[in-house]
């Protein structure tokens, strides 16, 4: 809990720098922090990844289970995304049931994956209307230094890219596991890009101090053909329609840079 005073000075400092095209941590307005990706690090999970975005650190584990399909999608697997703000990640996080922040994070990550149709859910049906694969994407925030959405989306898609599903056959209506695994069928790699508006100026990948002073946050996710697949505005400020379009154009460019890193990783 920094005092109101300090945060006002900090706000001025951050905003003034940004007005000059600079940032407190030395980045340019459209620069991401350094991105480090590790994949397949949790052997007990069917898929996993750890992403470090500057000092922000997020781990994602993917677990596969067999369950029932939704009644309006009897031939499709089920995607379930969850985010935990475990209290070791930040002095602000508390143990207990998920709050609105972690629910929003989970839903925005889920939206990017779902709306880009990244997972070929229709290939995850085992017995139509009865048994399908259920994909649990668990986002685990380990250190919160801002822009959890991009770090989590990134870690989730990398974890899905290394997810494997056991092979099986159906005998007398029962599922029998067979030796070996197939990769999770993916058709897209959605990438989200988050910008903050600080005194009317857009900056990419806000870190924690910037998030604390920003007017609004805008996250735009792109599918690999360059289409927008999800948007979420956050924060208690506003954006002009012009800013939104400008943000979309910046975000598209950045998403391509990041997708290249992912594909190479």
């Amino acid at each position: 809990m920094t005092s109101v005073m300090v945060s006002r000075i900090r706000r001025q400092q951050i905003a003034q720098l940004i007005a000059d095209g600079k940032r407190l941590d030395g980045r340019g307005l459209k620069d991401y922090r350094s991105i480090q990706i590790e994949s397949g690090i949790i052997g007990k999970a069917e898929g996993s990844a750890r992403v470090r975005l500057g000092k922000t650190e997020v781990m994602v584990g993917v677990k596969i289970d067999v369950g029932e399909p939704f009644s309006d999608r009897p031939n499709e697997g089920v995607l379930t995304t969850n985010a935990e703000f475990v209290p070791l990640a930040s002095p602000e996080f508390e143990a207990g049931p998920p709050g609105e922040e972690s629910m929003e994070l989970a839903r925005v990550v889920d939206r990017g994956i779902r709306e880009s149709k990244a997972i070929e859910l229709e290939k995850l049906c085992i017995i139509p209307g009865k048994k399908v694969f259920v994909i649990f994407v668990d986002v685990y925030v380990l250190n919160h230094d801002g822009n959890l959405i991009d770090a989590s989306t990134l870690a989730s898609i990398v974890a899905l890219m290394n997810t494997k599903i056991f092979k099986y056959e159906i005998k007398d209506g029962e599922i029998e596991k067979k030796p070996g695994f197939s990769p999770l069928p993916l058709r897209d790699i959605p990438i989200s890009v988050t910008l903050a508006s600080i005194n009317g100026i857009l900056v990419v990948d806000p870190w924690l101090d910037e998030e604390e002073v920003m007017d609004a946050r805008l996250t735009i996710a792109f599918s690999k053909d360059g289409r927008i697949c999800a948007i979420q505005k956050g924060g208690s400020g506003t954006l002009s329609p012009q800013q939104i379009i400008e943000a979309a154009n910046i975000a598209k460019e950045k998403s391509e840079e990041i997708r290249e890193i992912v594909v190479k990783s």
Partner: protein
Amino acid sequence: MTEKIVLVNEDGIRTDGRKLSELRPIKLEVGILSNADGSAYIEQGKNKILAAVYGPREVHPRHMALPDRALLRCRYHMAPFSVEERKSPAPSRREVELSKVIREAFEPAIFLEKFPRTSIDLFIEVLQADGGTRCAGVTVASLALADAGIPMKDLIVACAAGKAGGHLVLDLNDIEDKEGEADIPVAYMPSFNAVSLLQMDGLLTIEEFQQAINLALEGCKQIYALQKEALKAKYQAIKESTEVTEEE
């Protein structure tokens, strides 16, 4: 999904008979609940939504009070009978998320700094849902806030645009929302040209997105006019009834 539903026919007419950039019929009423400090009701297509405001009032629990401004709280909630399959009355993750983005949509509009150490509590109850409930909820909540006399920089108005059946369309209904290609809810302060809520589901090119945003803003402006009319009608009604009031 098994049979492809035709969302827009060859004459550019939608499943409910509307043109591409046509709003659903909207009915607004202000000041309809006696306990709330402010209240309003909207019907937009088959959506039926109530909003009520309590405050500025004492904050419970007290430690949540803010020293320099009012605490704005918002609850978007759906009645169990508002949707096809009964919804548990416990708040779903979707309702929690929408409560958050709606609160953030109103924070820039309300002069919260005028009421330090108090809370302003905004309740949106969806009695029947037909697509676009968060937008209709914002529109009606704005009227409830005005009815409660909460000072605002501008009314907030909300409307979605999106893509359905291959066309950009305004104010998506339930089936267009579920079977269409994209949905973009937008909340807007027309006097400031400021967007305070923005989300998107679906797939759109940047060009389509730009057009859809503009379409949504056009819708917002039309609804804004209806909001003002509804408030005027309320004031008129109050004027006419002030002689009859029996309770202070």
